């Protein structure tokens, strides 16, 4: 400690700036410059007004934006419904199995996202096991399909982002002081009331983080819609990828990326307002 204090007296006035310099440079190179380049591309369309890409984002691709948010929202809610109970069990009820269960949650990451999604193509196949079972259970009509439907895409999104929902919720549940639930029970609260009044509120930061980690990448995802959807399930990410790589209309693709970023930023700010960020895990 003495050394640091001694150093303090000789500290140059630039020290704080030097300390933040790596972070600032990182942001400059990997955020500001790419975004500026993207912005320049967005407004550099030839032979049309500069805002043409943005106008088309509304006129031609409004439906894709709307669909992307709908699918991402559905995947987030489904992820929450599946992920919360699982995180709860791992945090409170798994005993010695805790590490094993956490390992299983992370296990899918050992293969790439793309291969896993490809595997779903086989599982959801018209002649595959999932359709066979659901038809036998009369959940799907005879000749029904899962592959290349909305169900397929939302299912794929849910599956792919589920670990991002489970892990933050698990962390916030794990942090809860067990004595609080004991106290609640001492004060005559039943299991449901102690969950609703103690555990759930204290786990909200995890729910908040998990929803964002699911919703944001799911909105921009382009692989699930491409592999598991039909042309009527194309999401905005698929459109952007197509415009960049196949049609090669860079200004339009860049404009669409900007609009997507803007909508997500505004949405997240609003969400943070409602749920509060100071408790963000």
């Amino acid at each position: 400690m003495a050394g640091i204090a001694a150093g303090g007296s000789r500290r140059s006035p630039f020290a704080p700036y030097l300390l933040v310099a790596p972070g600032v440079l990182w942001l400059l190179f990997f955020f500001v410059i790419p975004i500026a380049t993207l912005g320049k591309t967005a407004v550099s369309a030839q032979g049309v007004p500069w805002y043409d890409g943005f106008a088309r984002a509304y006129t031609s691709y409004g439906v894709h934006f709307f669909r992307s948010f709908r699918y991402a929202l559905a995947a987030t809610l489904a992820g929450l419904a599946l992920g919360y109970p699982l995180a709860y069990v791992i945090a409170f009820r798994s005993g010695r199995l805790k590490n094993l269960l956490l390992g299983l949650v992370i296990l899918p990451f050992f293969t790439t996202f793309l291969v896993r999604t490809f595997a779903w193509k086989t599982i959801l196949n018209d002649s595959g096991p999932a359709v066979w079972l659901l038809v036998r259970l009369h959940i799907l009509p005879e000749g029904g399909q899962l592959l290349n439907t909305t169900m397929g895409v939302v299912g794929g999104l849910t599956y792919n982002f589920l670990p991002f929902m489970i892990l933050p919720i698990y962390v916030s549940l794990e942090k809860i002081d067990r004595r609080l639930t004991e106290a609640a029970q001492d004060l005559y609260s039943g299991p449901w009331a102690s969950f609703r009044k103690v555990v759930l509120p204290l786990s909200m930061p995890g729910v908040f983080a998990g929803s964002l980690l699911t919703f944001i990448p799911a909105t921009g995802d382009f692989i699930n819609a491409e592999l598991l959807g039909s042309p009527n399930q194309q999401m905005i990410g698929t459109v952007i990828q197509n415009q960049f790589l196949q049609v090669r209309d860079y200004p339009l693709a860049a404009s669409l990326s900007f609009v997507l970023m803007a909508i997500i930023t505004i949405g997240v700010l609003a969400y943070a307002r409602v749920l509060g960020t100071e408790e963000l895990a």
Partner: protein
Amino acid sequence: MSKREPYDEAELKAMVHRALNRRDFINRSAMAAGSLALGSALINACGGGKEAPKGGDTTAAVAAAGGAKQLHISNWPLYIDAKTVPDFEAATGIKTTYTEDVNDNNEFFAKIEEPLKRGQSIDRDIVVLTDWMAARMIRLGYLAPFDDSLFPNKANLVPGLRDVSFDPGRKYTIPWLSGMTGIGYNPKKTGRELTSINDIFDPKFKGKVTMLTEMRDTVGLVMLGQGKDPTTCTLDDAKAACAKIKQARVSGQVRKFTGNDYAADLAAGNIAVAIAWSGDIQGLAADNPDLRWVAPKEGAMLYSDNMMIPKTSTNIASAMAWMNYVYDPAHSAQIVTGAPYLSDVVGAGEALAKIDANLAKSELVNPPESLRARLHVFKALAEAEETQFNQLFQDAIGA
């Protein structure tokens, strides 16, 4: 924004497809291993191999002319037999990597465009792309000219394709195979024989139909179904065809717009009807012998896929050796045994009759006059026109 690692969908699909075609794959590996071990020793000992018909000696001479003894080829799936690559390696000693990673012209072009623009290597010495994309590659200056002194068999190209508008004298591109675009279907799923293009719009097949992302194939075929000729079509014809395609997409009739990957879905039974390339179906017979390809009564599209050398290739001599090898009629016939398309090599038909008399009579490799009369080549589009056609099509397929 999502940050996903860039991926190689075509390669992955090819991988999945190879796994499906296990029998073919095992054949291929066994052949490759066998010929590598024995073939090269034997043939080197014989000094060129006397069983190789005419051209065998020149091929060896070409290979001796220098350059690195390796070759990287990108081609479409289901487009070669199992013997050609190992035989070529044995005959020339050129280590050949043959990759089936071209799934769609635009998709492949998007991958190679940036490096070629900057003059960087794309690790390919030969790529195989369709006529219209070949024209674009030449226009953009992305190709290395052929060294005709290493390519004596070039004279075997059928006369009708020697002076195409986009490459007079064939200085940069030469056909690999030509093919027809028609209807591929699974009679078990359709419940009847199909003869008309408009059968793909039959509501009975709703959600069981795929069309190609290749604009000229899909739009051309739909135009034929509407009684228009793609060889002389107008913008209005394209609008009408695209409106029909869009309607079929919105109504859910069309399940997917695909590249060569329709093949896996057709074999797996996910789709009943596909706009399909003529030779693919036979390659799928190992998985599903019921599948059928038909040139619809209204007509079918004709195209050529061309070999070309990216300007950044450093193995030009090897690339020329390959082209010289496959332009030997016997070798071209050998390729057709594994990929029943149309060879553009003079004498390949006769050579094929010696290897496989039945196949040589098939309309897939030797269309009778009645079918030839129904084949159409999509008209050459000027750049501005191409943009208009593409925009219409992109809108129709919802991309």
